[in-house]
């Protein structure tokens, strides 16, 4: 692990990532040993529906950033099979031109997680951060409407859309579009691209910063949304048009990513996001601990019996959880 702090061999970096992916114990040791070297890299999330061009865009963004002297790493997540646990990780197909540049690419399988990332993605990001990469791009599983976990991991989230993916009601729906710090309409040379840009801009225009406009009058914004707008100190989410495979619109998009980084630092949002992220991370780890304690305290035979009782309608789920919980508590009392 010492080898991974501030550089070291790429093989030791790659091996540490594998260890962290596969073992909670290795993850705990690695993160404890490296944590003081983390927090430096700008973590940029790339999400959007399958086929919108995420991998192609990541490739040209990485090239542009590399050209500006930024040390880039890429973590690309693809789904695991719910049946066999196997996965076909194909993001590298689009990233062939990055060979020999020093850009580090790592493919990850989601391993049963449904939020768009793997459980261990955040830890892999920490390792790459400690190794010394300046900017880490995290490409999610092809995302639909609710895969928003990336916003908890990245400082800057790009949501990639492509033309022709639905009418403008889609863009008013809650979920993935709300997490965007930058919206990208890729394949902007396709018919309907203007329409997509317009409906996204309309959606943003109706958002918290401006208040909802109806017949030209501003309708009051709910307090919580207004507060969010103030907290973010009016970062105006830009809509950027790109054609990734022709390298069009890429430099302005990189400028927008850098501008968001500067904005986060200038407004104190960087610290606020780090704090929110740390809170969620601790909550998650605590939850895992509680579950592990529970599984230890209540033998699986007893758990199975209660599951059967619930399935057969002999007990309701709330009563069942009450019983299981008392068993954990009983365990704790007997320890004293």
């Amino acid at each position: 692990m010492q080898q991974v702090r501030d550089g070291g061999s790429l093989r030791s970096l790659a091996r540490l990532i594998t260890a962290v992916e596969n073992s909670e114990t290795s993850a705990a040791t690695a993160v404890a040993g490296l944590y003081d070297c983390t927090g430096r890299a700008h973590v940029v999330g790339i999400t959007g529906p399958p086929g919108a061009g995420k991998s192609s865009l990541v490739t040209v963004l990485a090239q542009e950033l590399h050209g500006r002297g930024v040390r880039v790493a890429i973590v690309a997540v693809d789904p695991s099979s719910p049946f066999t646990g196997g996965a076909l990780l194909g993001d590298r197909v689009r990233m062939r031109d990055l060979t020999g540049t020093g850009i580090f690419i790592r493919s990850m399988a989601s391993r049963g997680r449904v939020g768009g990332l793997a459980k261990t993605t955040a830890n892999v990001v920490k390792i790459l951060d400690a190794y010394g990469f300046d900017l880490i791009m995290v490409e999610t599983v092809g995302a639909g409407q609710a895969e928003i976990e990336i916003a908890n991991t990245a400082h800057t989230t790009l949501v990639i859309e492509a033309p022709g993916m639905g009418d403008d009601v889609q863009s008013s729906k809650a979920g993935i579009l709300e997490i965007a710090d930058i919206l990208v309409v890729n394949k902007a040379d396709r018919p309907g691209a203007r329409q997509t840009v317009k409906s996204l801009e309309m959606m943003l225009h109706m958002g918290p910063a401006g208040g909802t406009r109806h017949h030209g009058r501003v309708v009051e914004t709910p307090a919580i949304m207004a507060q969010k707008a103030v907290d973010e100190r009016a970062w105006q989410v830009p809509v950027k048009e790109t054609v990734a495979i022709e390298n069009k619109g890429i430099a302005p998009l990189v400028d927008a990513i850098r501008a968001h980084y500067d904005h986060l630092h200038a407004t104190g949002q960087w610290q606020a996001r780090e704090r929110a992220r740390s809170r969620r991370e601790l909550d998650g780890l605590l939850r895992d601990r509680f579950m592990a304690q529970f599984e230890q305290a209540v033998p699986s035979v007893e758990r199975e019996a209660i599951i059967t009782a619930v399935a057969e309608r002999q007990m309701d789920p709330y009563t069942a959880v009450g019983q299981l919980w008392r068993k954990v508590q009983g365990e704790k009392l007997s320890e004293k």
Partner: protein
Amino acid sequence: MNDDPNTPTYKPRILIAKPGLDGHDRGAKVIARALRDAGMEVIYTGLRQTPEMIVEAALQEDVDAIGLSILSGAHQTLMPRIMQLMRDYELSDVPVFLGGIIPEEDVSAMKALGVAGVFGPGSSIDEISSFVLGRIPVRE
């Protein structure tokens, strides 16, 4: 969760790539899919990979094995280069297996280069999959 490749929870990571210029990637895709269905994590890089691309991907992805498909007849040129790069990157412990069209008389030359196995047309999926699982080096 476990580090040990010999336990069922460990997901072997396998790189499947097509070096060289022929465009016949069906075989590589069939193998990638089959290993996926056998519960492995397959990193598929696609067509027209240079030896440098393949070995760099193997290094970054920390794969347990590499499967290459060559139907162009260029294996006598590509494989020595790939095996040399594997040594340069200190990846000699990662087994390489080969599929596609490799004439019978070239198989021993491939093995002499350090290729762990050669699977021509007619090889069964099960045979390849258990070969791969059997060759994965044990991690410390």
